[in-house]
């Protein structure tokens, strides 16, 4: 009984069905723990957490320089920046917008630098549903290859104050 003192000789190895289940469960745990290293080497979607320390003001400067140098248009006053294929792009989260709008080419790979100016924000690319954490002080680099065309919305999915639900950005893939 679970509420009473067990008999003195309670120490017994598992047997029968219980032993089989422990074996199966252990096997399944093996499979699951091997899947992650497997995907790390063979899979295409990984979060390596590549990051560099950066002061928010420095990141703001870099982003503004990037936006000015690569500007190809403007929408509602927000610059649209198109980085060179294989090049670096900067995306800044702040209360409450993502800056600038990025224009990318299908099938090209970019290094996207993500950081925040004030609070933590959540980079959530919809409707693809890819999500990464964005922290002030950390330049979080995603090496990203858009494989489908269209206009994607970045919503913020880390609580960042009262305007959190109105914090959007855009990635345009052509």
């Amino acid at each position, binding site marked *: 009984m679970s509420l009473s003192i067990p008999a003195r000789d309670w120490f017994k190895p598992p047997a029968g069905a219980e032993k089989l289940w422990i074996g199966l469960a252990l096997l399944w745990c093996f499979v699951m723990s091997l899947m992650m290293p497997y995907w790390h080497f063979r*899979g295409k979607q990984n*979060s390596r957490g590549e990051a560099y320390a950066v002061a928010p003001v420095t990141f703001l400067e870099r982003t503004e320089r990037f936006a000015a140098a690569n500007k190809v248009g403007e929408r509602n006053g927000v610059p649209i920046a198109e980085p060179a294929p294989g090049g670096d792009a900067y995306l800044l989260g702040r209360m409450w917008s993502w800056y600038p709008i990025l224009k990318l080419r299908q099938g090209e790979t970019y290094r996207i630098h993500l950081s925040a100016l004030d609070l*933590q924000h959540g980079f959530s690319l919809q409707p693809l549903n890819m999500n990464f954490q964005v922290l002030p002080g950390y330049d979080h680099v995603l090496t990203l290859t858009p494989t489908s065309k269209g206009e994607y919305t970045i919503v913020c999915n880390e609580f960042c104050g009262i305007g959190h639900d109105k914090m959007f950005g855009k990635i345009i893939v052509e």
Partner: protein
Amino acid sequence: MSSTLTVPIPASPEPAAPAASRKCDTTGLNVCLGAERFIQFNAVAAVVFLLVGGIAAILLALTRWQAVHLLPVDWFYRVLTLHGVNMLLFWILFFEVAVLYFTCTVPLNARLFSRKIAWASFAQMLIGALMVNGIILKGQADVLLTSYLPLVAHPAFYLGIILVATGTLTAVYNFFATLYVARRDRTFEGSMPLVTFGATAAAIIAVVTLLHGAIVMIPTFSYAMGWTAQPDPMWYRMIWWGLGHQSQQVNVCAMVSVWYLIGQLTTGAKPVNETVCRTAFLLYILFINLASAHHLLVDPAVGSAWKIWNTSYAMYLAVLASMIHGFTVPASVELAMREKGHAKGLFGWVTHLPWKNPAFSGALLSLLIFGFIGGITGVTLGTQQINIIAHNTLRITGHFHATVVGGTSLAFMALTYYVIPLIFRRDFIWRSAARAQPWMFGIGILFVSLGMSFAGSLGVPRRIYDIDHSGAFGAAAHLMLGVMGIGALLAVTGLFLFVILCVGTLLFGERNHGRAMADWGVAQALPGSREGSLAEDHWAVKGTIALTAVFLACFAVYYFANWKALADVWPVR
């Protein structure tokens, strides 16, 4: 307050206490009166905070359900903060302290080590909780449960949480001191019972957890006071989740102990193999401590190797533990039923289970919801790469409403159907409503969890006031939020009913002093059956074998379906 933590264990528990225990009229066990008093205090406080959290819950659900969209935006985040802390911290912790006091005294025939320490614990926790709730309602702590830096709340928020944590640690100290004295005075012979063993595992993890809480909250409090610089936000996340995630393992240990306990009370089940059950608890202690990684899988500055190693819990050995309990609990019940003579076919015994006993139905639903929904989603979402398509979406909230709500909270509610008659010594009022309550809460939470999970799969974020401005979410997402909303109405009705039943019984329930508690109904043995008759048949539990086979199949399908979904998004490194 902290001085209580360093009191050396004195020679005798407390001088000249008056009548220290009574004999339980139902079970014949000795009940330590000191423990009884503090089980009562903590359980009552738990239920009050559950009510606060429940009121918050319905306000939230009716706001996230876009068709209703009840609260204004500032109150949404305020109430979200309120809900998180009242439910996950206060309801759960107060109840767990009650469970600790019970498991270290009654099953061991022991006395609570110290009432003074129990008072010190209760006072700290209560003052802390009131401080936190006060400052949240004043609108000076709209930082949500996690209070991620650089968000800052009024210092009272952190101080309150620190007090709740030290209060809980004080109770844990009392628990260990009671165990020590019981062992020293030989109030029992041999190994401690399984529920006490499980509670001990919970208490050990709680110490580690609460220390993380202290490490992260004290500098944050100091920062909020303006004394020191702001701690690093990434450091904060890592240590905070050492508190936030590991405390969930405390909940799992407590919940599993409750499953075993209710299994025995309602069907006479006993562990098929004590060694296996105990080893599984041991695995929780050994392999849980790095699980904070779960929450950092798409964070910057923590590398793949660290993420993979830590999220696999050193090869998922804590998951293994849960899978073992998921087998041994139903197996013990099935074996008890078969020994009672209900042996027809695979599932013949199921119809003879005490379905009308709310403790039984609550524990059963808890096991199923925790295992099939909470467990499977948890391991999958906590897989390093799969987290990319789940992080901070409502999938996460859907997952933990199946673990800590449908699992732990429902198990605690189920246990209450015995706690009140046995510890408060009053029989429940309105017994027909009590029999329905676990079903309402359980089924409601099932829909809450599924609605959230599917909405999250469509990308809907958690912790967000409105999803319409973005234009990113369509009719399917709204439908799923509606499913969540309707589930929430049912679940919250079940929650309020639970509170009404508890309070009503404490006020108006008939006293059962001098007689056994009114029976909820337990599994009956057929004539000619014999307890222990299947002790040597290691394949008798055919129903459980079938159930766990189905479980493993569901698990594998869900797990690989998520890898497939991940493979469909853009390549990213």
